[in-house]
């Protein structure tokens, strides 16, 4: 595929998408703006025709892998099918036109959807209250830890300065704890993929504000000692935070609330099939146990049972709330897509998500072992995802996990997550999701088998891959050393 020019390189002075902008206003009509505040030269936006723009961005789109085009087994990202119906529903004119500050009288339809979604998520997770306000998983984490802090602060329990985090955790967990003013203490993970309980017991104390963890963990296995972990943290006076990154695995099987978690965030762009959009927008609703209810971020949708009218629960009615985390009320359009998905799946559909995502992962793991790959936790059941380690291949064949990932692109398969979690050497974290057919997985298995064969017979094919993409491997060192972040003619 040829190099695509930048949109700026299509620009010609005097050209424009002339159907789009209104006619210019006269200078007279701008006379109220003092000359000293006026821009002296035009901003350097491109001057291009409508067709230029449509063609340019359509061509660029073709340079992406996407769920709509390829199997996308990116571990911990839950790249399942994003129903088109959800997009159409969220883009209904009545929803798109609603101003975020429109009065409740003109918002009942929208608020009904939010209210229903709050209740749906509450039941699915076993929590006592849900706020849809956080705009992404990381902001949901922030809200969760901020609530933990608000809880301890309200009790004047101010010696709690530490958040415990298993070493396999997502990078957002420690970064979030720091944003909430906490120190981070890592807890080791044992050989089988479970948290080292003895080490946790030693780490817990009066300085412990809480523990953040994912279950199933990022090792792709269910944390079997979860009750003992919950008891240890609670006995020390800390609270338990559930990172919902892997909620897909346990939907309808076991609920975070029943495992003893005090606060959780959900990634609707994972578990509830809203699109990842090339890196967002997401939505990261939070759910809480009884004792954190007063601190939920606002606004939330409330219902007056008698009148049947919806109203906003805001900081004036919930003054203990940690407050607003955005100018308005979070990523509304993402919430509507998740609501559509929840309503289509319903109770039995939710249960199937956990079942079939787990079935797919265990199938894929078994077959990849059969064709010669090494599981990081061979004695464990896979959850909705699992880890392969290519330590042996790296040592014996000098072919790394990254090489295999890049070669997969040539087989028209998106690469799994590479080098995460950090504690497993040369790892691939693989998550097929429940929406991929057996044939799609078999194609992936065939590609993996072929690559392993290549690694043994023609390793350069793997080490120099990809060959079929718009670009070959990129010079990341040059990108960082000779920063080129904006175009100039």
């Amino acid at each position, binding site marked *: 595929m040829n190099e695509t020019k930048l949109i700026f390189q299509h620009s010609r002075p005097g050209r424009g998408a002339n159907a789009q902008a209104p006619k210019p206003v006269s200078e007279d009509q701008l006379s109220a703006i003092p000359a000293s505040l006026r821009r002296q030269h035009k901003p350097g936006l491109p001057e291009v025709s409508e067709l230029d723009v449509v063609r340019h961005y359509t061509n660029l789109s073709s*340079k992406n892998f996407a769920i709509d085009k390829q199997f996308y087994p990116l571990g911990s990202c839950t790249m399942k099918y994003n129903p088109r119906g959800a997009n159409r529903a969220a883009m209904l004119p009545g929803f798109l036109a609603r101003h975020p500050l429109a009065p409740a009288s003109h918002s009942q339809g929208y608020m009904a959807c939010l209210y229903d979604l709050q209740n749906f998520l509450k039941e699915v997770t076993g929590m006592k209250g849900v706020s849809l306000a956080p705009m992404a998983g990381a902001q949901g984490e922030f809200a969760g830890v901020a609530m933990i802090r608000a809880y301890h602060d309200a009790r004047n329990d101010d010696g709690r300065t530490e958040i415990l985090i298993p070493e396999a955790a997502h990078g957002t967990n420690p970064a979030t704890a720091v944003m909430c003013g906490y120190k981070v203490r890592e807890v080791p993970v044992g050989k089988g993929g479970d948290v080292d309980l003895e080490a946790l017991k030693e780490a817990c104390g009066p300085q412990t504000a809480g523990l953040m963890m994912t279950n199933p963990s990022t090792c792709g296995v269910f944390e079997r000692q979860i009750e003992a972990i919950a008891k240890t943290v609670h006995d020390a006076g800390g609270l338990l935070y559930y990172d919902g990154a892997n909620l897909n695995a346990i939907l309808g099987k076991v609920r975070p609330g029943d495992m003893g978690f005090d606060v959780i965030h959900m990634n609707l762009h994972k578990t509830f099939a809203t699109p990842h959009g090339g890196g967002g927008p997401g939505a990261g609703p939070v759910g809480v146990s009884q004792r954190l209810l007063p601190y939920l971020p606002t606004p939330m949708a409330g219902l007056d049972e008698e009148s049947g009218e919806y109203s906003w629960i805001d900081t004036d009615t919930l003054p203990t709330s940690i407050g607003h985390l955005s100018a308005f009320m979070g990523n509304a359009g993402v919430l509507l897509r998740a609501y559509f998905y929840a309503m289509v799946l319903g109770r039995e559909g939710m249960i199937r998500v956990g079942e079939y995502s787990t079935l797919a992962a265990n199938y894929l793991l078994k077959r990849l072992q059969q064709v010669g790959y090494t599981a990081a936790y061979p004695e464990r059941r896979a959850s909705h995802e699992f880890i392969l380690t290519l330590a042996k291949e790296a040592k014996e064949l000098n072919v790394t996990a990254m090489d295999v990932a890049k070669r997969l692109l040539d087989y028209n398969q998106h690469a799994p997550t590479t080098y995460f979690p950090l504690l497993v050497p040369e790892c691939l974290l693989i998550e097929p999701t429940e929406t991929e057919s057996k044939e799609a997985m078999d194609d992936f298995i065939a590609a993996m088998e072929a690559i392993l064969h290549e690694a043994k017979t023609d390793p350069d094919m793997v080490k120099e891959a990809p060959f079929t993409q718009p670009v070959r491997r990129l010079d990341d060192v040059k990108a960082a050393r000779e920063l080129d972040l904006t175009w100039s003619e």
Partner: protein
Amino acid sequence: MPYIPHTPDDVSAMLDAIGAERIEDLFDEIPAHLKAGSSLDALPEGRGEMEVTRLMAERAEQDRYALSFLGGGAYQHHIPAAVWEIATRGEFYTAYTPYQAEASQGTLQVIYEYQTLIARLTGMDVANASVYDGASGLAEAVLMALRANRKSKSNRVLVPEALNPRYRSACDAIVRNQDVALDTVPFCTDCGQTLADSLNQYEGQDYAALVISQPNYFGSLEDVDALADWAHANGMLVIAVVNPTSLALLTPPGEWGAEGADIVVGEGQPLGIPLSSGGPYFGFMACKQKHVRQMPGRIIGRTVDLEGKQGFTLTLQAREQHIRRSKATSNICTNQGLAMTAATIYMSLIGPDGLASVAGHCHANTQKLADKLTAIDGVERAFTAPTFHEVVLTLPQDADTVLARLAEKDILGGLSLAKDYGMSNAVLVNATEIHTEGDLDLFATALKDVLA
């Protein structure tokens, strides 16, 4: 099974391969008594796309069209059809963060173009790939300023009272956990601006940054040159909060005062994003080159591949949480990719003259609206300062009551300033290029009726 493709034969074949009898066996590592709560009895039965679409269409219809003059940080603009037709192509809509650069050149090049567009619009050196929204972007900017201002040891930042109160409260909710204090600079109650004189009381005190909002929440235009110069003279960085449409007409932050702003943030919604109840929008963020390593979020760089061909990749990742963990610049992971993609398409379509024309109509229509409304007895402009596309009017009656009565006529006649500023008779009104002369007249007539 909605969205699950497996036939009974597939399921048995997969179970056979695994060596399990039933799917339930795959959950045998979960303690049995923990599973009890998960029958999910309170959830509704699933329905088809037709039924759910009908339900949601009825609800969308319920929030019936009203003639709106609401602004306050989210604005109605014409969105070219091509913007979302292209942004919702599956190749953009269903891709993930471009970690595999070779298979994500589409998204990566879009972000590089977006960074360029934002840098040019704001007059800054560099931009990131966007943050969640304008308000949370301000929180990121405040935290960034604390890191970037090496001369200051302070964890305090000066924030104008005339800043959008929703930005103020979200920013506070995010930064207060790191013991960052936001001190308030009052506005002039006659002119509706933040005067350089009101800053004198802070002279000689250690603050990491001064936030300047252009226009401010009242729509008033600030004397940004004087404010920026004052901040720099007092060892503070300048954080600009700007409306992107206005930048087609107004001095870009990069040129404020002698040195220009250091960090710029704002709400990207006016650039092709529908109102959609407040999101998803995106926050744009730009800065001077020297501060780039303190900027949070994704940043894309242009480089070459091993054959020397141009390509785009995530860069400066050592700032980010997936590498630096607890030492990262922020916990932010994703950006607002799809909204940012739409804005890139919007800016390309609208062009420099088009954006100036949109901004011009916003300004002119708001002036016209203010003239029509202030022709009504007892309705007056609250402040004397020049404005961009919002203006505060005082009414002869309680604003909340008047707005509620207008809403009964399906006119959303502005935002009350009662709760946020204790100005119980004041409303903030906005008009943009989408309002016709007839719309403005309808509002004026309705307001006259309500006040009569």
